[in-house]
């Protein structure tokens, strides 16, 4: 089966693209045709790499077609998409420093700490210094990546990938994490949560946004990673998209939190979970205040006075 990648895999083009990938669910040989591809977001990149990795893991044959004439071939190479998919092609350019511009696709492994630090320094150069003007951005990206990375490792049962991009002129930062695992609903069901037997994918995503939903039976994970990430998204006026199975949930910016839940078009499904965040760089400053507000908003902090003893 040949899958023609569309010209635009960003904004409104992302969900139809996920469905197009899903159309190969029963195929043994899959050809990805890159001839028309012109724009692709980090979410599109990590979704593609995660799917190709799953197909290859299942023993299917995956080949590229027309990647040599793809208008954005150097970009795909620089983002390490082709190498991650196993499509070796010589690079006809010199690799320059990526800091402050993008983070190539990276596999999520046990080194979540290192991944978070490296990717955050790439998005917010200098931000690892607590006094730096980009420290807030560094902290936000590090927090989201490590919590989402932990989720991939602990719950997905599959491989995860992350990527990021900074739009210098528009001032937007895009982060995406995708895995090819069991998805949120199956994760709940396999954990033995009775209520999950009667809900669908979109309800499962909404449930995962509630605080401490996955606490039971997992003492190391208090089930707040996705909850706090979504509240941080809201507080920074960000866009957030979560896709898992057939379900999608979008959180949009604005004075009031707008949460839209739905399903992928054409009965499509994304086997695994995809989380994409887009936020304005200038909306992120004091991360500790943001996190404190996100925790209070989630109902995670109950007491006005904390009894902990702190000293310098």
């Amino acid at each position, binding site marked *: 089966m040949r899958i023609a990648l569309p010209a635009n895999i960003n904004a409104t083009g992302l969900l139809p693209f996920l469905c197009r990938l899903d159309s190969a669910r029963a195929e043994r040989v899959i050809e990805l045709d890159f001839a028309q591809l012109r724009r692709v977001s980090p979410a599109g990149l990590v979704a593609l790499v995660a799917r190709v990795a799953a197909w290859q893991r299942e023993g299917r044959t995956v080949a590229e077609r027309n990647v040599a004439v793809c208008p954005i071939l150097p970009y795909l190479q620089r983002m390490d998409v082709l190498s991650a998919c196993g499509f070796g092609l010589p690079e006809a350019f010199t690799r320059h420093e990526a800091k402050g511009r993008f983070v190539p696709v990276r596999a999520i492994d046990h080194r979540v*700490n290192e991944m978070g630090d490296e990717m955050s320094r790439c998005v917010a150069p200098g931000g690892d210094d607590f006094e730096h003007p980009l420290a807030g951005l560094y902290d936000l990206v590090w927090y989201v990546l490590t919590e989402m990375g932990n989720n991939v490792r602990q719950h997905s049962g599959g491989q995860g990938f992350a990527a990021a991009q900074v739009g210098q002129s528009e001032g937007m930062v895009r982060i995406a994490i995708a895995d090819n695992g069991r998805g949120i609903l199956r994760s709940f069901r396999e954990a033995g949560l009775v209520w999950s037997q009667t809900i669908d994918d979109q309800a499962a995503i909404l449930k995962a946004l509630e605080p401490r939903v996955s606490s039971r039976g997992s*003492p190391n994970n208090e089930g707040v990673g996705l909850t706090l990430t979504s509240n941080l998204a809201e507080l920074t006026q960000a866009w957030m998209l979560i896709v898992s199975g057939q379900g999608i949930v979008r959180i949009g910016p604005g004075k009031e939190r707008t949460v839209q839940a739905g399903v992928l078009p054409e009965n499509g499904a994304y086997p695994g979970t995809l989380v994409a965040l887009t936020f304005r760089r200038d909306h992120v400053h004091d991360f500790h205040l943001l996190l404190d507000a996100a925790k209070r908003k989630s109902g995670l902090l109950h007491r006005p006075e904390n009894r*902990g003893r702190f000293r310098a």
Partner: protein
Amino acid sequence: MELQLAKELGAHLADGEVAASFRLSRIQPYVSIYEEITLDFTGVRNANSSFMNALIAGVVEQHGEAVLERMTFKGCNPLIRVLAEAAIDLGVQKIDGRIDA
């Protein structure tokens, strides 16, 4: 007893499993032995909720809220402090039975 987190675990603390393991081996066994326990976060640049909850909430849950009178959180930057406060709050809520452990 004073435990220096940066020296033992590094400047970036993201893994809840590492935190739980550290708590079980390096904190819990000594809570009833030492009068004062200091967790020194000097040099820790950042942490996430998974790590801090696994490190701190379990101590409070296991030994009761009174343990906080014997524990000191030292050298916390503002982010670590927010996370530590939330982890303490979580431990207290677990004792109160508002959250299933």
